[in-house]
């Protein structure tokens, strides 16, 4: 017996089987390519394909549940890619340290040349756009707001660093993350203990998630900092 909720539109029902089969085909192609490749960086890129297959299968549900499941899936995939790329780089550095005859060549970076242009729009526009992004992110709250605000923080840091200016380094980002977890857990607890304060607990959870996601995206900006540090 197949249980179909009554609020699923008819058009989505006819799209269910093709989406599931497409997800299976894409996942099969991705895993086959992973099995045939031996270099780790290629495997890391091909992991993206398996993530896309996951999105296909989840989105075939077609309700708000699908949307709620896709968001954490994407973020977990992002964190996984970040962690594995760090591991690959660290391992390669360890191999070089063990064999000192192979010296590091003169390094290039993601942004090879610092901007030396002295135009007014270079100083004012990134500040304004970052301010608007952070303000709009705080207004949105929740997951999306965190992403928007974090994007604003990253844009600010990148635009200052690309011109060779010092960036204000905030220590204790991990502490902000801990406070965000506490807010989230308190909000979740209040939902069950005192359901009449649901608005308060909703906003506690939303603001906690905002802090958490914004600091996570800001962390990615900090990680890019070492690439931008070169003159």
């Amino acid at each position: 017996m197949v249980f179909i909720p009554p609020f699923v539109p008819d058009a989505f029902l006819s799209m269910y089987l093709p989406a599931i089969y497409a997800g299976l085909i894409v996942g099969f192609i991705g895993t086959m390519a992973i099995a045939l490749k031996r270099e780790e960086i290629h495997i890391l890129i091909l992991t993206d394909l398996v993530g896309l297959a996951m999105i296909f299968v989840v989105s075939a549900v077609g309700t708000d549940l699908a949307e709620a499941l896709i968001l954490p899936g994407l973020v977990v995939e992002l964190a996984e890619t970040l962690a594995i790329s760090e591991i690959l780089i660290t391992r390669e550095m360890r191999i070089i340290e063990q064999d000192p005859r192979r010296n590091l060549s003169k390094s290039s970076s993601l942004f090879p040349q610092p901007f030396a242009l002295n135009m007014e729009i270079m100083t004012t526009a990134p500040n304004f756009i970052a301010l608007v992004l952070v303000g709009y992110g705080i207004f949105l709250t929740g997951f999306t707001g965190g992403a928007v605000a974090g994007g604003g923080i990253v844009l600010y840091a990148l635009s200052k660093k690309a011109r060779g200016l010092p960036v204000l380094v905030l220590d204790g980002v991990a502490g902000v993350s801990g406070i965000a977890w506490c807010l989230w857990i308190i909000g979740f607890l209040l939902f069950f203990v005192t359901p009449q304060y649901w608005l308060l607990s909703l906003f506690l959870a939303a603001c906690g998630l905002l802090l958490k996601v914004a600091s996570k995206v800001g962390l990615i900006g900090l990680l890019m900092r070492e690439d931008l540090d070169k003159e």
Partner: protein
Amino acid sequence: MIEVQIFFYFGIFLAIVGSIATAWGPGVNDPIIRTFNTEMASIGVCLVLLCYNHVLALLTLLATTVIITLILFRAIIRLEEMGADV
């Protein structure tokens, strides 16, 4: 009036062709070309999400695709300048 189903099946087509191109396409031994081919499959997924009205998921997919591309480029450049076999 163009049917929504056309975009849906075109998205599926793009995703499958893009994944085949990522796996066995021309010149994929260069990791940068392989990364670019992944974008094609993700555009297909974007079309499918658009047909399902998943706006938040679509926006998050776009944002994470950009960030993942940056991370992968950083890893590829670092590994190549250290002389690893990529």
